[in-house]
């Protein structure tokens, strides 16, 4: 919305219309500021959840790798490698859903599930040590943390995008629309003042001429 001064009708009606637009724009800025505050609060809440979850994930993975190395030490790395070739795979599936969050923004909900639930052991128990079971179950547990972390990070990304849009909208109103409206209002006010002044002079001249004409006739 750009205002060309030349295209503005310097009328009182236009002035009133512009003033109404200005107060509306100021109202919008106010609402946007409040939205931004709400979004910032939500962002902090989400960001706060990330470090403990990430720590938990790293801890689980570290334990899983340690157990895996122990399993390799007990059974032999070649045997573990061989067993892994035929271990029953778990078909993980990630389902995505949406939930309404702050300001009605749609946040993703990622749900990790096992497509094919393996009822028995995934490999020959006689060839491997229990550490391999523990390591596999820890790796599996860490997948759930990784997906949860991805869900939060995606929510943060969406939130930051919305915040950037709101910020852009606010800046546009604050630094473009409002100054333009102010300029237009000032322009109309000046024109109207000028017109008033000219009218006043014209009235005074007419009054003076009327008086002179009256004196002549008298």
């Amino acid at each position, binding site marked *: 919305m750009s205002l060309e001064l030349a295209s503005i009708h310097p009328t009182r009606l236009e002035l009133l219309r512009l003033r109404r637009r200005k107060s509306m724009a100021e109202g919008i800025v106010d609402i946007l500021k409040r939205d931004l505050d709400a979004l910032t609060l939500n962002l902090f809440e989400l960001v706060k959840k990330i470090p403990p979850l990430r720590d938990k994930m790293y801890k689980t993975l570290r334990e899983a790798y340690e157990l895996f190395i122990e399993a390799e030490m007990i059974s032999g*790395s070649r045997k573990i490698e061989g067993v892994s070739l035929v271990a029953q795979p778990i078909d993980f599936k990630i389902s995505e859903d949406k939930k309404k969050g702050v300001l009605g923004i749609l946040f993703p909900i990622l749900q990790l599930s096992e497509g094919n639930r393996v009822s028995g*052991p995934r490999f*020959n128990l006689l060839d491997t040590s229990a550490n391999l079971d523990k390591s596999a179950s820890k790796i599996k547990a860490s997948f759930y943390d990784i997906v949860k972390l991805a869900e939060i990070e995606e929510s943060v990304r969406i939130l930051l995008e919305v915040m950037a849009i709101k910020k852009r909208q606010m800046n546009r109103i604050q630094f473009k629309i409002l100054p333009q409206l102010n300029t237009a209002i000032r322009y109309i006010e000046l024109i109207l003042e000028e017109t008033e002044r000219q009218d006043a002079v014209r009235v005074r001249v007419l009054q003076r001429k009327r008086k002179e004409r009256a004196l002549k006739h008298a």
Partner: protein
Amino acid sequence: MCAWKYKRIMPKIAIAKLKLMEPKEIIDLAGMSLHHISSILEKTPYEAEISKIGTKELSANSLEDALLQNFIKTCEELMELSPKHIRLLLSTFLMKFEANCVKAILRAKQADLDVDEAMKYIMPVGRLGEARCRKTLEISEKVADVVESLSDMEYGSVLEKAFAVYEEEEIFYLLEIALDRHVYSKIWRAIGKLGGLDKKIARTVIGLEIDSANVKTILRCKAMEIRNYQIRRYLIPVSEVFGEKELEEVIRESDIQSFINSLVRLARNAMVRDYQYIFTE
């Protein structure tokens, strides 16, 4: 047990034992690099196998293979010097490695590896030499072909029986379990042919191995909340302390603690049985 039949083997074992590494020396290896470990192992009875490893090929896997080869070679040497029944037991014991070799071939086929890649996982041993392993891999396209190509060996018939279940349930390790069960049953039968104290010692050693494998399997299955009827399929049905029926009874225990309590009770019963055996002997 007649000590006289061991007259050839005992001095050799005594000398070989002296050459073995001390536990402290083995512990010290833990902090060393692979090259350092390899150079130390070259001064031990593993020298012949370790020295075959090239500098570029040196890895944890190659060292592992070398040590295993040495173990198999030692078993074969002992076999030659042993009396008839002990030789039979040792040759049956070596079937464990053959079974591992068969398992590796099956795994490689299941994973659709090419021959050279598959050979990395295979340790040729006994009747399954490198040429036989390569040939089996080359002529087989699928697991079923491997089973067929092994039909001239006892593993073929064992795998054939398990193959139907494998095809139905698509659980690969059922084939591996069938092999393990067969090998342990065969070792147990070979022990049965021994006499006197030889038999008692062999039953105790192998029985302990089977029992510990079974107990570990049950504990792991319980931890994974696997159903009882499934657990039974993973057990080796020959044992010294815990028989098949006894294990089936204790499997029914709902939690690990009560399972352990039942095992302890069974172990006590077995001890009493052993003492009775010694007294009657």
